[in-house]
């Protein structure tokens, strides 16, 4: 019953997201095929994750779990339903002092079950004017544990105009999710250069950076 309800809610959500944003995937560096991946994306709005989820073809979507903050997604019954049942999120606790389990271990466990995952390596929403915040160590720790899985840079474009922070009504604007070429942790690569490399790979997908405003 819950599963049916979750499937229906998921369908309504993707339809609504398409209506507002005409969401489109731009498969620039990878093909939309069933392969285990870690999608790492920029994070400016709460709508980022549902949007990436929307543009994934259904077969891929079923096998992809977003990593999300437990303190946000477990706040109310409705959010818990959306987070746990609709998105099947891997819920982790961002607050180190409240933690009962290691978040990286939980993510690795999801990978070992065969799921692809979506992560936001900036660690929180970017409220600044900079396109990206410095990445947290999480993506490095995941890559160290499972170095063979493709790390796919995923740029969500234009979403901050659809719903600027503090606004509640989304404006319908076209929105594109751009998937870049996968990144891998090199042998003996240190954390700092790896984080910079990931961040650059993601930033390079930003259409605003290449001059043409899209």
């Amino acid at each position, binding site marked *: 019953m819950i599963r049916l309800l979750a499937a229906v809610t998921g369908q309504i959500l993707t339809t609504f997201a398409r209506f507002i944003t*005409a969401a*489109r995937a731009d498969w620039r560096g990878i093909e939309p095929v069933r392969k285990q991946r870690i999608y790492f994306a920029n994070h400016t709005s709460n709508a980022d994750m549902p949007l990436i989820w929307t543009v994934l073809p259904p077969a891929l979507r079923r096998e992809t779990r977003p990593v999300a903050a437990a303190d946000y997604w477990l706040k109310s019954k409705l959010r818990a339903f959306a987070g746990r049942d609709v998105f099947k999120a891997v819920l982790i606790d961002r607050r180190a002092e409240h933690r009962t389990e290691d978040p990286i271990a939980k993510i690795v466990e999801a990978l070992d079950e065969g799921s692809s995952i979506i992560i936001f390596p900036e660690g929180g929403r970017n409220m600044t004017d900079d396109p990206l915040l410095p990445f947290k160590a999480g993506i490095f720790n995941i890559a160290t544990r499972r170095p063979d899985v493709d790390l796919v840079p995923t740029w969500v474009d*234009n979403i901050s*105009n659809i719903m*600027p922070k503090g*606004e509640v*009504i989304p*404006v*319908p*604007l*076209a929105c594109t999710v751009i998937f870049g070429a996968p990144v891998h942790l090199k042998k003996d690569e240190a954390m700092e250069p790896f984080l910079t490399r990931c961040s650059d790979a993601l930033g390079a997908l930003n259409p605003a950076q290449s*001059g*043409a*405003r*899209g």
Partner: protein
Amino acid sequence: MTQTSADLIMLFAGVVGLLFLATIAGEILRVRDADGSPVVDTFVTRVHSWWAMVAILALALISGRVAIVVLFAFASFAALREFMTLTQKTRADHWAMVASFYVVLPVQYILIWWGQEGLFTSFIPVYAFLLLPILSMLRGAGASFLSRISETQWALMICVFCASHVPALLVLDIDGYGARNVLLIAFLVLVVQLGDLMEYFAGRRFGRTRVAETISRKTWEGVGCGLAFAVLVGALLAWITPFGVFWSGVYAGIAFLVGVGGALVLAAIKQDRGVQNWGHLIPGQGGFVDQLDSVFFAAPVFFYMTRYFWV
């Protein structure tokens, strides 16, 4: 069956015949051209899109006023979404944009459905024009204020005001034409789109002199052929209009020329914003604005020409 439905079905049969020819031509090209050149691929995709567009428009025209108004309201919505994606905006414009999509657009189409000509011709050029900048100002104005409010107004004029003048043709009470106005919509869309098509093919084949060197590949030769074809189609379709053969040709020619101007203006805007297409929703064509730019420009001109000389 009424005369109008019979005429619509005749017209539809003719268009379906043309589409069959285009489909067969596409398949022949595809067989001949084994390497699969992108030009042939684009042509075949476009033909598929035309089938879908003809089917949707025909269904709406047969179903009547509500369906037609709703169809164009959705086309406006998609076009406005494409346009606003490219306009300058800051947080201060959020309310103005929310109001454009969720208030101005539906109200304009409700006024059209209601048939209040005095209201739907002034609502966007007067009321939206004055009220939306007030909203942006209340949210803190900011840099490039004049450019931003102008771009929002432009988006509304093209994508909502102009586009809504296609279904607005239903409102006109033309002497001796009865309730056949739905045929005027078919007439306008057909002469403009067929003229565009001829302009495209003739331009690719014998075009030499560019109309606007830096903006578009359109040529004077192509536009000339398109104009001749639009006038011919217009004259041949005189039986569905109240204008008579001569004036049908003239009206078709004017609508086509205004449409070409519109397509060029919107191409210049695309160039200014550094994009190839307005969107991606119509396979092979780009966005709604790419497909309908000429119809959007031609619609108000055609509407007022008919309104002042035939009502």
